[in-house]
C-alpha cells in the first residue's frame, strides 16, 4: 500500500488488525462469491460449451490463422490503429501551430487560435466524424481521422499551453535577452521543455485516441469492434460472447500498455531529476579541486542530456 493512503487511518493495533482481518475475509468471500456466482449462472446458461472452439478451430471454411491473423490482426487491430497512426502526426503538427499562434503577440493570431481550440474541445468527436461522412462525403477512414485530428489538436494545444505556462518565466526572458526572436524562443526554448514536462499527458492522450477510434464503428468504419461483430455474425449467435470478450481483452491490453508506458516515463523522469540532484549533493565532499563547480556542471549536463 502506498504511503499516501496510510495517512488516512492509524497504524493498526491488535484490535484493529483483528477487525481488518475479519473485513478482509468477509470482502474476499464476497468478491470471490460474486465471481463464482457469475461464473455459475453463466455455466447454467451453457456459456462454457463448445462455442469457444471457434477460437482454435473456427470451421465454416476458416482456419485459426484466417481468424486470428487475417481477420482480427490485419482487419481489426490494424483497422483500429490505422486512423490513430495517421491522426497523431497531423494532430501534433496542427497543435504546434495552434500553440504558437496562441502565444503570439498579435491578437489577430491569438484570438482565432483560441476560438478554434475552444470550439473543437467542446464538440463530440462522433459529431465531427458524422460530419465527415454526411457533410464532406469522405471515406469513413478519413472521417475517423478527421474527428481524431480536429479534437486532439485542440487538446494537445491545451496540454502544450499548460506546459509552457508551467515553465519558469526566466526561460523565455533568457531566450529573448540573448537575442532570439519570440518565435525562436518558442521553438527552441519553450516548446522543447513544455513537450518534455507534458510527455506523460501526451502519451495518455494516445489512449484517448485509441478509444475514440472505436467511434468509427458507429459511422461504419471497419475497426476492431466491426471485426468482432463480423465474426460473430459469420460464426453464429452463440459466438457473440466469445468475440466480444476477445476484443475487450485486446482493447484493454493495448490501452493498458500505453498507460503503463506513460506512467513509466513519468516515473523515469522523476527519478532522473532526483538522481541528478542527488549527484550534485553527493559529489560535493569528495570531488577534486573545485569539486563543487565540477559536480554542479556535471549534474547539469546530465540533466541536459536526459532532456534531449
Amino acid at each position, binding site marked *: *500500500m502506498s504511503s*499516501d*493512503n496510510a*495517512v*488516512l*487511518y*492509524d497504524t*493498526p493495533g491488535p484490535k484493529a488488525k483483528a477487525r*481488518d482481518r475479519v*473485513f*478482509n475475509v468477509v*470482502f*474476499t468471500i*464476497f*468478491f470471490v462469491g460474486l465471481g463464482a456466482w*457469475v461464473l455459475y*449462472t*453463466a455455466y447454467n*446458461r451453457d*456459456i462454457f460449451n463448445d462455442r469457444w472452439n471457434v477460437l482454435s478451430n473456427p470451421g465454416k471454411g476458416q482456419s485459426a490463422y484466417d481468424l486470428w491473423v487475417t481477420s482480427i490482426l490485419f482487419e481489426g487491430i490494424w483497422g483500429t490503429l490505422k486512423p490513430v497512426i495517421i491522426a497523431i502526426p497531423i494532430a501534433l503538427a496542427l497543435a504546434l501551430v495552434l500553440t504558437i499562434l496562441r502565444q503570439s503577440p498579435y491578437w489577430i493570431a491569438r484570438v482565432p487560435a483560441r476560438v478554434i481550440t*475552444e*470550439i473543437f*474541445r*467542446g*464538440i*463530440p*468527436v*462522433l*459529431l465531427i466524424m*458524422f*460530419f465527415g461522412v*454526411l*457533410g464532406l462525403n469522405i471515406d469513413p477512414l478519413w472521417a475517423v481521422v478527421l474527428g481524431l485530428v480536429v479534437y486532439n489538436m485542440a487538446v494537445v494545444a491545451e496540454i502544450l499551453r499548460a506546459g509552457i505556462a508551467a515553465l519558469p518565466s526566466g526561460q523565455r526572458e533568457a531566450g529573448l535577452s540573448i537575442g532570439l526572436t519570440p518565435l525562436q524562443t518558442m521553438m527552441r526554448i519553450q516548446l522543447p521543455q513544455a513537450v518534455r514536462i507534458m510527455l506523460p499527458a501526451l502519451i495518455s492522450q494516445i*489512449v484517448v485516441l*485509441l*478509444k*475514440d477510434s*472505436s*467511434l468509427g*464503428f*458507429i459511422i461504419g468504419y471497419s475497426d476492431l*469492434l466491426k471485426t*468482432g*461483430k463480423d465474426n*460473430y455474425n459469420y460464426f453464429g449467435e*452463440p459466438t*457473440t*460472447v466469445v468475440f*466480444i*470478450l476477445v*476484443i*475487450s481483452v485486446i*482493447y*484493454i491490453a493495448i*490501452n*493498458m500498455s500505453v*498507460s503503463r508506458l506513460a506512467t513509466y516515463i513519468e516515473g523515469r523522469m522523476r527519478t532522473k531529476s532526483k538522481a541528478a540532484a542527488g549527484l550534485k549533493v553527493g559529489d560535493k565532499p569528495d570531488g577534486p579541486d573545485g569539486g563543487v563547480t565540477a559536480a554542479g556542471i556535471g549534474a547539469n549536463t546530465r540533466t541536459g542530456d536526459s532532456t534531449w
Partner: protein
Amino acid sequence: MGVLIDNADLMWRAFTMTLWLSVAAGVLSFVWGVLLAAFRVSPIGPLRKFGSVYVSIFRNTPLTLLFLFLLVAAPPLLGLLVPLGVAMAILAMTLYTSTFVCEVVRSGINSVGVGQAEAARSLGLSFFQVLSQVVLPQAFRSVIPPLINVYIAHVKNTSVAAGFAVFELTASAQRLSNFNASDVVAIFAGIGLLYLVITIPMGLASQRIERKVAIAR
C-alpha cells in the same frame, strides 16, 4: 438556416435528451465514482483490489465497446437484459465515467495536506469520519476543476448513445441531414453550437474555480 428553425421542436427534444443523459448518468457516476475512490484508499485490501481492477478495466475499454457489450454479450453472459435505449446509455455511461470520477477524487484525496488527516486521527476520528468529515470536503474543492473537465467529456460522450438507438443531439444531426442533404453544414453547425452551449460554460466555470482555489491555497 431554415432547416434548423423548421425542426426546432425535434432539436429541442434531442437537446433535452442529451441533457437528461448527462445529468442522470452524471449523478450516478458521481456516487459510484466517489464510492470507488473510497474503496481505493480504504484499509481493507479486497476493496482496494476491487477498486483498482474495476478502474483499470473500465477506463481502458472504449465506451462504444461497453454499449456493445451490454447489448449483445451481457444477456447470455450475465443474464442481464438491459433495455436498449436510454436505460442502456445511462448504465454504460455510469460504468465508464465513474472510473474517471474515481481517479480525480483519489488524486484530490492525495492532495489534501497530510497534517489534516493526522490531526483528524489524533482527535480519534475513525477512517470513515476522517474521510467524510475532514479529507473529502477539502478534496472536493481542489477536485472541482478537473471534475468539471471529466463531466465535459461525459457530456460529449453521450453522443455515443446515438449509435445505440437513443435520439439525442448527434442522432438528430444524422437524421436531419438524411432528410435535408443540402443543409448539412448548417445542421452540423447548429447541433455543434448546442453542444457548445453546454460545454463552454462548464469550461469557463472550471477555469474560474481553478483560479479561485489556486489563490485560496
